[in-house]
């Protein structure tokens, strides 16, 4: 498909540049912003996890959780309907949709010697990390982990 002469990309870009005089200053600004971004990256290097949004130290696999001999509280971070369909036996529902409502019953069952393992499914893959972070930051809990592979991993190894 041949585009009309006036709409061809090179001609369009040239038109923007000639009519608006914008391309060169834009490139200069794009380049300038790289410098503080790199400085920020170096400054925050300890906090940034490049491989996954959840730091490796906060992810646990199912075999490790099983080695903890039941000294675990499972937290299901998926939406209500997915939890109602099926969940890990004994898992408590704590999702972000009803955070204020679901947190108190969870805290009532929590005890400091137990480790908390949060899971979600690959369909809602960000939820477990977010719930784990809020348990750490807002509920001030320690020993909160995210299950690698989530609900699907549990089903596979069940």
């Amino acid at each position: 498909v041949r585009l009309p002469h006036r709409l061809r990309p090179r001609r369009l870009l040239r038109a923007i540049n000639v009519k608006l005089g914008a391309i060169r200053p834009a490139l200069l600004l794009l380049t300038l912003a790289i410098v503080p971004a790199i400085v920020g990256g170096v400054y925050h290097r300890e906090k940034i996890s490049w491989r996954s949004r959840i730091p490796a130290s906060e992810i646990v696999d199912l075999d490790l959780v099983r080695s903890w001999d039941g000294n675990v509280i499972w937290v299901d971070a998926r939406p209500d309907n997915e939890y109602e369909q099926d969940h890990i036996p004994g898992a408590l529902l704590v999702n972000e949709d009803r955070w204020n409502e679901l947190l108190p019953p969870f805290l009532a069952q929590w005890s400091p010697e137990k480790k908390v393992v949060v899971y979600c499914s690959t369909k809602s893959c960000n939820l477990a990390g977010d719930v784990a972070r809020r348990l750490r930051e807002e509920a001030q809990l320690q020993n909160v982990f995210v299950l690698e592979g989530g609900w699907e991993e549990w089903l596979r190894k069940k």
Partner: protein
Amino acid sequence: MKATTSNVQRSTLNAQLAARTSLGVGRWTLDVGRFPVLRITMQILAFIIAAIFIFAALIKILDIDQLVIDVIHLRFAAALQNLKHLSLRDPVGFARDIDNYNLLPWPVAVVLALYLPWLEIFSGLALVTRRLYRGGLLILTLLTTVFIAASIVAKARGLDISCGCFGHVSKGWSFGWHLLLDFGILGALVTLLLQPERLKTSARESRE
């Protein structure tokens, strides 16, 4: 001969002046030079847009949520106290917001989280100082367009996204309000971008 040359020069100068002070392109051109109020309005609009983007960037770089809350509630003494304990914000939070759109791999989200706030600041400053002005306008227009498109796509896919744009200020806003504000900003940016400050004299204007 001498008089003819000077008339041609005068005509060209007039056309160039008209082009420099007009708003719009082609037949939709509006002569801003004839309306000083409109020219000042355009400058104020540029300042407002710059302020919005610089604020949106600062809230991603600095931990100023509490400071903003104090200022909004006119608690200036507390705001000053918070100003003393100002710290840098962890970029991972903004990276998570970008990652929630499920459009980009995680490492790209981290790079953008480090880069975009500074790009917004530099582009905003370009609007305020009028250095690299057109470049700043073009970048902010493209950023807003991409952001609107990504928001609509994410909503269409049923994702519950938080853009993280204005921190605490925009926490309770619905998707509709966000979109309305974004389209308002985009409209203002396009209006500013269509001010042909350096537009070359068109053939039509030369003839006139």
